[in-house]
């Protein structure tokens, strides 16, 4: 009999394949695909270069920041951590707004340059995309590495003190083994996120030269209704991303039980590196904080939001986001339940979860739309498809949070639960819930925040009947209604920040 994890994985993969087939069948002019060769090569090369640069910078800066945060305790450390979480979960369209507000020609630095008599460079192009991607992904790297560093047994730090390790010795023997273990999977994840980036590339790309496959698919569907081309591009992106997802699965370190007696033991390199750490912390804060704080300008424009349109968009966003959050958690839990069967664990749930990283949401949703339009009213499909696709897009993150928690629980108590015949709902309630609730809260908040700020699928379905806050923000930005846009951006950042704060409180309480 197929188990829930296998059934869920098969259902997700069938949905993905079905949508792509539906999309491919909708088109008729297969011959046009033959002309795509040089275009595709250029597209992949430029997206690959952009993603590689973004990944390299995010990894180097994120690692430096994680080490500085590991070594230092200072007033405002918690605020900086909350800022990092906010940057990681802030809607991409808000990050794009913040980058323009700080680095744009009319932004803070642009105005400063003009007041000094210099003509500021344009933010649109490869450099703008890379800056935005670093602002978004460096916090992701920092949080993941900091978590890994802090899980190392404190005895090693005490040993380093007793053996008189210098700062270089500490890096070589304490930090580098952790970086070498964690960084490859993180690098693939960040590359994947940047390679499939949509809102940032659309807003800051400055033209087709820097387009990603995702943007090309959107343009093929939205402006040219060329479903065959969209399906071909989507298939290609899916192949590349599946290969990267497989690499990430292979590179993700196995969960290790290395509980030490003392996690808070101090390191011997605290004094030697305080200047370097201070510099890194200031630079990181200077890179991340201004784009996020730039939306504070929206505080004075909140009155512009007093409209029925805003209320409708806020309610729609909330309904979509909460539905997507719940669905993502449910699917991730079902997939992660495969981890109970250690050591005969199947890789199929991993594949289904991480395949979503590579599946272009536009191709996916357009394929589903084509498949379903004969059965129901197309206008009502948006409200169903947007949360579904948002949940599936959040699935890899929710799964990454829940699967290790469930695997650890299975390692620790699985055999005991089996011997006591505690199974099904009772096992979830009595054995797994205590280990799971922290991760579940984080997964729900993360998936909800991701959906709340999504400016992807909604770009296809959005209109007067279906408007979300990010859609409204993009609409106001396009109409140069900057005051209203900044107020909307503030609402979105506060929502994401609030969710991040609640997640941190919940996780700390249930750690």
């Amino acid at each position, binding site marked *: 009999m197929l188990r829930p994890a296998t059934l869920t994985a098969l259902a997700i993969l069938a949905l993905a394949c079905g949508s792509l087939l539906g999309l491919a069948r909708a088109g008729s002019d297969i011959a046009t695909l033959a002309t795509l060769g040089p275009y595709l090569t250029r597209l992949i090369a430029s997206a690959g270069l952009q993603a590689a640069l973004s990944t390299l910078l995010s990894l180097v800066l994120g690692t430096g920041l994680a080490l500085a945060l590991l070594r230092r305790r200072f007033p405002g450390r918690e605020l900086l951590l909350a800022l990092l979480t906010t940057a990681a979960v802030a809607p991409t369209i808000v990050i794009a707004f913040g980058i323009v507000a700080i680095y744009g020609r009319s932004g803070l630095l642009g105005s400063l340059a003009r007041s000094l008599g210099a003509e500021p460079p344009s933010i649109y192009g490869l450099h703008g995309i890379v800056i935005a991607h670093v602002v978004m992904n460096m916090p992701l790297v920092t949080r993941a590495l900091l978590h890994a560093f802090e899980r190392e047994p404190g*005895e090693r730090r005490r040993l380093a003190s007793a053996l008189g390790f210098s700062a270089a010795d500490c890096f070589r023997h304490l930090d580098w083994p952790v970086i070498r273990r964690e960084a490859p999977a993180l690098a693939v994840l960040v590359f994947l996120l940047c390679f499939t980036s949509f809102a940032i590339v659309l807003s800051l790309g400055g033209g087709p030269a820097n387009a990603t496959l995702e943007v090309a698919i959107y343009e093929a569907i939205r402006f040219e209704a060329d479903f065959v081309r969209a399906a071909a591009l989507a298939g290609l992106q899916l192949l590349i991303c599946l290969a990267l997802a497989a690499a990430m699965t292979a590179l993700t370190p196995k969960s290790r039980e290395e509980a030490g007696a003392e996690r808070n033991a101090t390191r011997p390199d605290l004094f030697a590196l305080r200047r370097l750490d201070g510099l890194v912390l200031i630079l990181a804060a200077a890179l991340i904080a201004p784009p996020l704080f730039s939306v504070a300008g929206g505080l004075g424009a909140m009155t512009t939001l007093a409209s029925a349109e805003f209320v409708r968009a806020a309610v729609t966003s909330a309904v979509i986001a909460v539905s997507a959050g719940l669905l993502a958690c449910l699917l991730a839990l079902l997939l992660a339940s495969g981890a109970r069967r250690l050591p005969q664990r199947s890789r199929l749930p991993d594949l289904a979860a991480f395949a979503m990283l590579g599946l272009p949401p536009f191709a996916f949703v357009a394929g589903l739309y084509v498949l379903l339009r004969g059965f129901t009213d197309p206008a009502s499909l948006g409200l169903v498809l947007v949360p579904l696709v948002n949940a599936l897009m959040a699935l890899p993150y929710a799964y990454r949070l829940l699967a290790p928690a469930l695997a650890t629980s299975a390692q620790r108590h699985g055999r005991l639960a089996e011997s006591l015949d505690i199974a099904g709902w009772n096992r979830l309630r009595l054995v797994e819930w205590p280990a799971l609730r922290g991760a579940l809260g984080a997964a729900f908040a993360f998936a909800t925040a991701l959906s709340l700020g999504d400016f992807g699928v909604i770009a296809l379905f959005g209109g007067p009947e279906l408007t979300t806050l990010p859609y409204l923000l993009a609409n106001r930005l396009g109409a140069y209604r900057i005051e209203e846009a900044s107020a909307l951006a503030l609402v979105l950042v506060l929502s994401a920040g609030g969710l991040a704060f609640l997640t941190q409180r919940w996780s700390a309480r249930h750690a």
Partner: protein
Amino acid sequence: MLEFAGLALRYPDFEACYDLTVPAGALCAVIGPSGGGKTTLLHAIAGFERPSAGRLHFNGQDLLPLAPAARPVSILFQDHNLFPHLTAAENVGLGLKPSLRLDVDERERVAAALAEVNLTEFASRRPAELSGGQRQRVALARALLRGKPLMLLDEPFGALDPGLRREMIDRVDTLRRSHGLTVLMTLHTPEEAAQTADLFAFVANGRVEAAGPWDRLTAPGGPEPVRRFLGR
């Protein structure tokens, strides 16, 4: 001689104050209930914890102003004594130079230290390829190589089989005698060191509540807390 008097440590939920004198070259077994402050005492001597008051002297030298690496102390924990990415020889070599840029003479000293704990043929293995007892012997070799006269063992053999535990305690005793070390060793099962240790210190509630040779502590009429702890 190791002396500490009024050595006080304060935490939000725990206060400790230790007094004890251990003769030079002695093996002192530190026993007592879990959470009683045995590890805290060893960490204070090693320099990992900063006492708020008191004296801590070894052979007349005040240890309190010294950083952990500058103290005449080597320490072994119950686990995580080795770095998993280094071989046994490299882990021992850390005791000489953390940079691991060893010259020929230093490499010979590493080999000799490994030979002293019968691990010559395991020199190129990583910790994951060694048994629990072998790992602790590697850590012991490193401690010996450092040449520090005071050795602290924080339940280092707690995870080993009883037979192996006994063997390791005997090995520590032999090395202590041949190298002239003063040893403080916390133990879960004090009976295993009854024939070896010169002195037992019973630590509970953050204090050394009783100290003396095994026979005196366990004799009828001996200290009540010790007899209760031992179930006698």
